[in-house]
């Protein structure tokens, strides 16, 4: 195991000092400074909008800095494109996996550098064999001939890592690699990261989860407002200090759960099943209650939510809302009946990125805002502005496209969109994924407020502290089945994880 003391005197493999990057009038990076040493795992933390992703894109050659000193092994470099950085041994895994859905898994790993056989032609056999070898090193059973479309995010991430390993990267940069993973997958990823580090690679990763940052990294660099704040040895710094540096203030309560009166049953799901996805799922959610749905990624939680809301069909069981049966496979009917769904992937499923904040916030209200089928622009603007200010969406103008907002503020817009419909049941799927500490607390407060106002909340979350802090009751799913229902008083990290991972009976 390589420690800081061992790497302290070593020349950094990658160093960037005082890099500036502007987009028109916007300063995305005011002082981008980072040093990555060979054989270390370096965590980069900061609130959303702190400039972490811009810094990474500079290191990756996606953006060219306006000024600054960029060195690789002590030599000045200038990456003009991602191809340059890749050639120099810098591998980047982005927040959103960048796979090609139409190509096979093997081809995704080797695209642009497929093994060639006779006559310079690509040898599919060699490619397949090498992919299989990589997966057996990683210990994951993925079929290299399968097309990438439809792979889970965890599997996509593994493929990205296989790609980086096969590139023999000297520097591996990961932008929130664990945001979509949980439990086993995270451990697997960390195992791979450690072995790469022990092999001499420098690893830089962004994370919002402090347990990971402290459990995995050798050093931590903090950024705020596009600028470098400090780099610490992980062993000699506390979470409180990092949080203070990130937000520039103290954060008191992370999970401000307010007391809500719990009323009648709103949602009743019984015996719900979808072949090959989940089986025999039964539970209720009452008014004013926050029910947490925990489990590992791939346990079928999102799929249950999609089936309830009517996006996917279900083969068995029934769903009732406020005592009345809910029409299956009809999201329109679900919305009319009073269900809101805040999806897990807000960029693709929750928002129309090109539309303005106002338009997004009022999307669900189009018919009530319209007169004779034509939307009343004034009412639309007023309603949008009203909700944006109630949820404290931070934007320069409500007419700006929602893509210009930070992740946390985007999530608030999604929440606003559904709150405007005055729902009786709100399903939130990973409500704070990829959201910084400060905004996270605001989102938690919002959800808690909703419960106080009598809305039934079903919250899917892979973050245990969030589930334990927010939920009145915790449901745990494993491999498509509901394995436990735990009351707030009895819910602990251990009891939830046990139910999420414990295999009973025959299997292994």
């Amino acid at each position, binding site marked *: 195991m390589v420690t800081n003391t061992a790497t302290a005197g070593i020349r950094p493999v990658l160093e960037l000092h005082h890099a500036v990057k502007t987009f028109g009038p916007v300063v995305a990076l005011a002082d981008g400074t980072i040093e990555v040493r060979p054989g270390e795992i370096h965590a980069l933390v900061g609130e959303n909008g702190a400039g972490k992703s811009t810094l990474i894109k500079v290191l990756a050659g996606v953006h060219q800095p306006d000024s600054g000193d960029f060195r690789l092994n002590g030599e000045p470099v200038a990456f003009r494109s991602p191809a340059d*950085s890749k050639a120099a041994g810098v591998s980047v895994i982005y927040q959103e996996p960048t796979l*090609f859905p*139409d190509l096979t898994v093997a081809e995704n790993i080797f695209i642009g550098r497929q093994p060639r056989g006779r006559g310079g032609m*690509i040898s599919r056999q060699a490619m397949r064999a090498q992919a299989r070898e990589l997966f057996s090193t990683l210990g994951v059973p993925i079929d290299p001939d399968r097309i990438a479309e439809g792979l889970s995010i965890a599997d996509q991430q593994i493929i990205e890592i296989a790609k980086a390993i096969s590139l023999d990267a000297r520097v591996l940069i990961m932008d929130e690699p664990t945001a979509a993973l949980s439990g086993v997958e995270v451990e697997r990823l960390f195992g791979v990261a450690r072995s790469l580090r022990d092999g001499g690679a420098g690893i830089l990763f962004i994370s919002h989860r402090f347990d990971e940052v402290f459990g995995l990294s050798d050093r931590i660099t903090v950024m705020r407002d596009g600028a470098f704040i400090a780099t610490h040895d992980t062993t000699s710094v506390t979470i409180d200090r990092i949080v203070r540096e990130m937000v520039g203030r103290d954060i008191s309560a992370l999970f401000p759960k307010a007391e809500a009166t719990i009323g009648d049953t709103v949602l009743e799901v019984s015996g719900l099943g979808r072949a090959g996805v989940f089986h025999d799922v039964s539970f209720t959610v009452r008014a004013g209650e926050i029910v947490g749905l925990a489990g590992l990624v791939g346990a079928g939680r999102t799929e249950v939510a999609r089936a309830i809301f009517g996006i996917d069909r279900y083969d068995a069981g029934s769903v009732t809302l406020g005592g009345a049966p809910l029409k299956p496979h009809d999201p329109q009917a679900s919305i009319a009946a009073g269900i809101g769904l805040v999806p897990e992937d807000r960029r693709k499923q929750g928002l129309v990125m090109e539309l303005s904040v106002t338009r997004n916030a009022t999307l669900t209200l189009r018919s009530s805002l319209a007169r004779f089928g034509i939307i009343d622009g004034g009412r639309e603007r007023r309603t949008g502005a009203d909700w944006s200010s109630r949820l404290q969406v931070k934007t320069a103008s409500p007419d700006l496209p929602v893509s210009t907002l930070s992740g946390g503020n985007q999530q608030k817009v999604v929440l606003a969109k559904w709150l405007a419909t005055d729902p009786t049941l709100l399903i939130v799927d990973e409500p704070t994924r990829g959201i910084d500490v400060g905004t996270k607390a605001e989102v938690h407060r919002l959800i808690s407020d909703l419960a106080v106002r009598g809305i039934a909340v079903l919250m899917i979350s892979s973050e245990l502290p969030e589930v334990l802090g927010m939920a009145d009751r915790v449901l745990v799913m494993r491999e498509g089945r509901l394995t436990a229902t735990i009351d707030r008083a009895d819910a602990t990290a251990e009891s939830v994880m046990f139910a999420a991972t414990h295999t009973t009976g025959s299997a292994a």
Partner: protein
Amino acid sequence: MTNVKTSPSSSSSTPPPTAAQASIGRSALSKVMRSREVPVASALIVLVVVTTAVNPLFLTPQGVKDLLLNATIVIILAVGQALVIITRNVDLSVGSMLGLTAYLTGTLFADIPGIPIAVVFLAGMLLGGALGALNGLLVTIAKVPALVITLGTLYIYRGVNNAWAGGTQYFAGDRPRGFSNLSTQTVVGFPLITLLAVVVVIGVAIVLAYTRTGRDLYAIGSDPEAARLFGIPVTRRVLGAFIASGILAGLAGVLYASRYNAVGATTGTGLELDVVAAAVVGGVAIFGGSGTVVGAAIGALLLTTITSALTALRVDKFWQQAIVGVLILSAITIDRIVSLYRARQLRMSEARDV
């Protein structure tokens, strides 16, 4: 799933060869059954068989030759179009590019007596390549959708053709016999220009399937943003696809002048839609990322054969276009159903693996 599990063990522990072979055979068979070309090819076979049963004159050597000759030009254009569509673009200017190069061919033969045929081919392909490069540059630099850019160049190139040709037409009589022979002489029943088209199809198919450049095109069409992040030279590849489409349109233009009697200002008008239709019917996904040039070529053959078959079956000419339309919609519907089915299969098989 069985195939996946058996093939690695077959290389390491040498099981009975028959089992391994059967497994490979099964996997090859299932691959064939899943491919996008099979439905089109089957449709083509059914069409030919039914038509011949009703009207035996349909499959005479002369009938076959006519079928192939009619398809040749569209096949070459469809190959170029497939390259462009795979990158999630489209080239609507192919008909106009063909018109310009066909007219250039007529002009060269008429104005320069004794010009070598090879030089004319080269000139046509160079002109086509230049026109394609202009398309590609506009698409990659202006970052305007190719649909709009090539709709513009469709009219521009046609306008240039009109201005250049005016009322002039060149006829086969102006051209050397050796040039016209390309379309009349056959080798084992295949016209020479059709054989040339087959060589083009095979050549491009190999590039697409077995070279890194070819695979890059699929990656770009599958997710352009990811391709850029991954360091694939997106601009260069897309430009290359448009140039290739232009060169092939140029080749098709020269062959057009060999195949048909007259070339003038309106030569090739409206061809672009036939070509896009051929590619789509042949399984080239209009949103890029998948499909093959073999499929596109079969699609072209199917569309031109349908026209001939309907004539042979004495179906009213007015119905022919409607039937082609139905075919395009069915091709897309089948494609959609197959992909939904495949998604469901993946879901079930993976659930079982857990």
